[in-house]
């Protein structure tokens, strides 16, 4: 196999790292399973801090995933995109906040709810 090296080869000493050259890490490849269904959204306010999601963070959302109990989802509430944790419980479907200062929302039927996408990653500023 012939590897193409991006570095010039000086006469004399061969570069010791040359044999290990691979392409750099591509975040798109590792963080995005399907480019047609993945979107980035930005968080406003603090109801999800318990899930490690803060005001101003960017989230990777995959619309093609099926939401399950425990998924962090972008839901359509009153015509707006909102982020909640989906809980499927005995008392029905709950869109839970991850901050005690914010209320949970109980939805009578799963079919009454429109889920926009499932959050896969949070890009948090440290």
């Amino acid at each position, binding site marked *: 196999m012939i590897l193409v090296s991006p570095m010039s080869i000086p006469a004399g000493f061969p570069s010791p790292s040359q044999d290990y050259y691979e392409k750099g890490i591509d975040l798109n490849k590792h963080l995005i399973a*399907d*480019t*047609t*269904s993945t*979107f*980035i*959204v*930005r*968080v*406003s*306010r*603090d*109801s*999800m801090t318990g899930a490690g*999601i803060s*005001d101003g963070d*960017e*989230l990777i959302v995959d*619309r*093609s995933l099926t939401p399950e109990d425990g998924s962090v989802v*972008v839901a*359509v*509430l*009153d*015509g*707006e*995109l*909102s*982020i909640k944790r989906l809980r499927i419980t005995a008392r029905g479907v709950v869109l839970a*906040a991850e901050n005690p200062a*914010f209320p949970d929302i109980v939805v009578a039927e799963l079919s009454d709810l*429109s889920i*926009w996408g499932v959050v896969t990653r949070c890009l948090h500023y440290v």
Partner: protein
Amino acid sequence: MTQKGLGHDHRRFALVDANSFYVSCERVFDPALEGVPTVVLSNNGCVVARSNEAKALGIEMGEPWFKLAARAKGWGLIQRLSNYELYGDLSARFMTILGRYSPALEVSSVDESFLLLKGAPEELVVTGRNIRSTVARNTGLPVCVGIGPTKTLAKFANRVAKQNPWMGGVCNLDTMPAAHVETIMSRVPVTGIWVIAGRLGKRLNVMGIHTIKDLRDADPVLIRKRFNVVVQRKVLELRGVPCIELETTRADKKQTIFSRSFSTPVITIKDMHEVLSLYAQSAAVRLARDKQVAKVMTVFAGTSHFNERASSFPSVTVKLSTPTADPVILTKAAVNALDGELIEGVPYARARVMLTGLSPAGAEPTFDEFVTVHERREIGSLMGKVKDKYGSTSIGLGAAGMLKPPDWTMSRKHQSPRYTTGWDELPVVKAS
């Protein structure tokens, strides 16, 4: 006389198109628009897309906003200014998904593609449903799928799917009784599908051809005699005989067009020269990128069709001295073409520079003395590289070398954010 069962190598054409595409793109990120009458306006304020609710209000394509504005509030009508970054990105996602269902794909416009599918009629209905649900889930766009033995019948089937919500957005003519298809055909006006536009429609009406069924049953030889082979092919295709193949390659692109409407009218000849210079240079960059040269240039400028007091629509075609992609020659040609045709003081609303007679660069021998200095220096491809790196207004020749964006470029006010292409304009999700 739709072919039943599996004729013609099991091949079927599918036409997939997005419903009210621009409005649907806006709704993906602004769900409050769902069910609300919504129009999308071009940058000169005319309706270029309507939601079904807006269509139901009787709003027509091309209607200027100023004629609707007074009634908009009473109707609850919402307007959005066209957001081509957003529509382009969602279109690319849509077409990528379609490509997973068939290697034979013809992207016919931003919101519409033909594919070739193989399989039994019922299987293809399932495939159509899968396409529809995958596009809806991944992108949020609602689409309809029409399937038939020819492109024209696929287009017809798509229309049937769109107008009959009970079909669930998918119509395969092969699974419908022939009598049923015939009944629908006898109800759709001949102008209801593809290529049969207003004037041609009237000429067909004079011959007693009013519906799709009448056209299907017309004598193809007579149609060819009275009209042309294009209309004859429609007749044959409606009978299930494939005459129009998929155009899956764009390699034989025969023209390149730069056409824009202005956000504010261009009133002086000097400003119009600036516009034409910029378009000619954009066209030169595109030619260089595609490694093509052009033989013919057509330059057009026009006032608004709604401006009845001042109208001017000059259009001039010039043959270039030698096939070229040279921005200097193309710029001079574009500016000189309308010499004496433009009227000073008239508010021009749009302009177009079109290059035709394209051929691969270097395909025809050129005499050395006709190769300009600029061509040898490859200014066109250099300008392309600079524009790619520093933006489309970063470099320009002559009148197009402007320091600030001119007044007539697209107004960005009232435009939705570039949700999928601009990091500073991402959709905001509420955590509250």
